[in-house]
């Protein structure tokens, strides 16, 4: 397993954990989906893995190395990139500067080349490279945030609700993009409210309830599990947010 989380307890206030002993595993090249009702602690779980929420106990292992106490700004250097749900770009910097801001992690001579590669992968961004990122649409902002995370060649990419606030058409494009990224061998951990779209591209899924994982299984069978759908994803059968 490239990413392994064991019994993680985390929260912003001492003695008031939001994540209460959650565990997960992600193998190389897998898309792992984390689902759960509102307030289940999904975002806090992924932020705790990224070093943004204080961890009280438990372990986060990346390629077998303990990174639990690694400061947030070192995570990306260790190979773990995180794309927050909102405010995930620097609006008063240009699109190009938003990519270059990660340049300190790479060798100086390869920064320009990597930025060009990202513009080749996301041609829509290339056309807007000199614009302030704050003028981009919601979908373009998401694209820029993902491009910035990919710039430093992470081994694991974690995304917090990348489809939030996007039109159905853009949601489709985002998930197609994630599949394309996975085909390059990258591991993706995806926290999503849009269960239907996420499970359609996921390999495995975890359902979090009240800060703990309540179910784990292959993504496609999870979708067909009426009990899980009823308990955690909305109502009986296939009624989930989409």
């Amino acid at each position, binding site marked *: 397993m490239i990413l392994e989380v064991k019994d993680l307890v985390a929260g912003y206030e001492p003695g008031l954990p939001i994540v209460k002993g959650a565990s997960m595993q992600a193998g190389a090249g897998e898309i792992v989906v984390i689902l759960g009702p509102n307030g289940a602690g999904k975002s806090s779980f992924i932020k705790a893995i990224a070093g943004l929420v204080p961890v009280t106990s438990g372990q986060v292992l990346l390629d077998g190395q303990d990174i639990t106490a690694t400061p947030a700004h070192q995570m990306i250097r260790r190979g773990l990139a995180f794309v927050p749900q909102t405010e995930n770009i620097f609006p*008063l910097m240009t699109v190009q500067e938003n990519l270059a801001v990660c340049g300190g992690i790479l060798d100086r001579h390869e920064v320009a080349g990597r930025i060009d590669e990202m513009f080749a992968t996301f041609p829509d961004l290339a056309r807007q490279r000199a614009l302030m990122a704050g003028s981009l649409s919601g979908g373009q902002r998401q694209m820029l945030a993902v491009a910035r995370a990919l710039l430093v060649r992470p081994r694991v990419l974690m995304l917090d609700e990348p489809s939030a606030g996007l039109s159905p058409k853009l949601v489709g494009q985002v998930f197609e993009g994630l599949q394309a990224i996975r085909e390059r061998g990258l591991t993706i951990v995806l926290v999503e409210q849009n269960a239907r779209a996420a499970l359609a591209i996921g390999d495995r899924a975890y359902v979090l309830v009240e800060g703990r994982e309540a179910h784990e299984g292959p993504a496609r069978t999870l979708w067909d599990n009426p009990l899980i759908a009823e308990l955690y994803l909305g109502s009986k059968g296939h009624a989930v947010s989409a």
Partner: protein
Amino acid sequence: MQFLLDGLIAGASVGLGAIGVTLTYSVLRFSNFAHGDFMAWGAYAALVVVGFIGGSTPLGPFSFGLPLILALMVAMGLTSGMALALDWALFARLRARGQAIIVVMASFGASMALRSLLEFIFTSRPTYFSRSIQMAMPVGFGVKITADQVAMLVLTLCLVVGVHLMMTRTQRGREMRAYAQNPALARVVGIDVDRVVRSTWVIGASLACASGVMVGVLVQIRPLMGLSLLLPIFAAAILGGIGSVPGAVLAGVIIGLSEAAAVQFIGAEWRAAVAFVILMGVLLIRPTGLFGVTER
């Protein structure tokens, strides 16, 4: 027309000070009222270093020699060190508690302590880098300028262009701007927050020192010199737009010219009121300042 040149020179030192205030406010998110005292400490540090180096042969038409140029560089380092030490001992601990108003109050306290310490060590009597009298050169339209004034304007221009290029063209500058916009995201994208904080203090304190030395060369050095420039500096930082280096300098020049015009046309007793009126006007009409931008 002479008042325009006087205003430009006064505005240059205000602008240099305002850069430090605007960077501290945008990156560290608090108004550092001790910034004026960094100017005074910088000037006194340069004075002490000049004394250590010895020798005072003036360089060409200037009132100062090589020792002052060397002393300025050393004093910038010393002032930066003082700012970093103050941050480590006081501001960083209070910032960690997350209450900005406590940090602002602490900066008031630090300002008083730094000022009193200067008076204790050097007394409140004014002192000078040089007591030689310079002859001003006529440059047309009845305006006269001294070689020292030209040197200080050139120094200001070099420092401002340098800081602007650093902020816009270098990785460290991008990191500082990114952190100012979104500290949490800055951590996510791998920016070392401690390094950004250190850079902010070093740049701000170095420019404050340069500004203090400028005032010392052109006017005099005294423990209260920073306090008397504090209101114009804050007015310039706000007028220029928080976070904008060119804005801070341009606003400094506007305030310097306005003060000089007030002295010329209304009366010297109104000089101090000008910065206050500009500050209030900006806050009421355009709180983001001349170059301040808000996210769309």
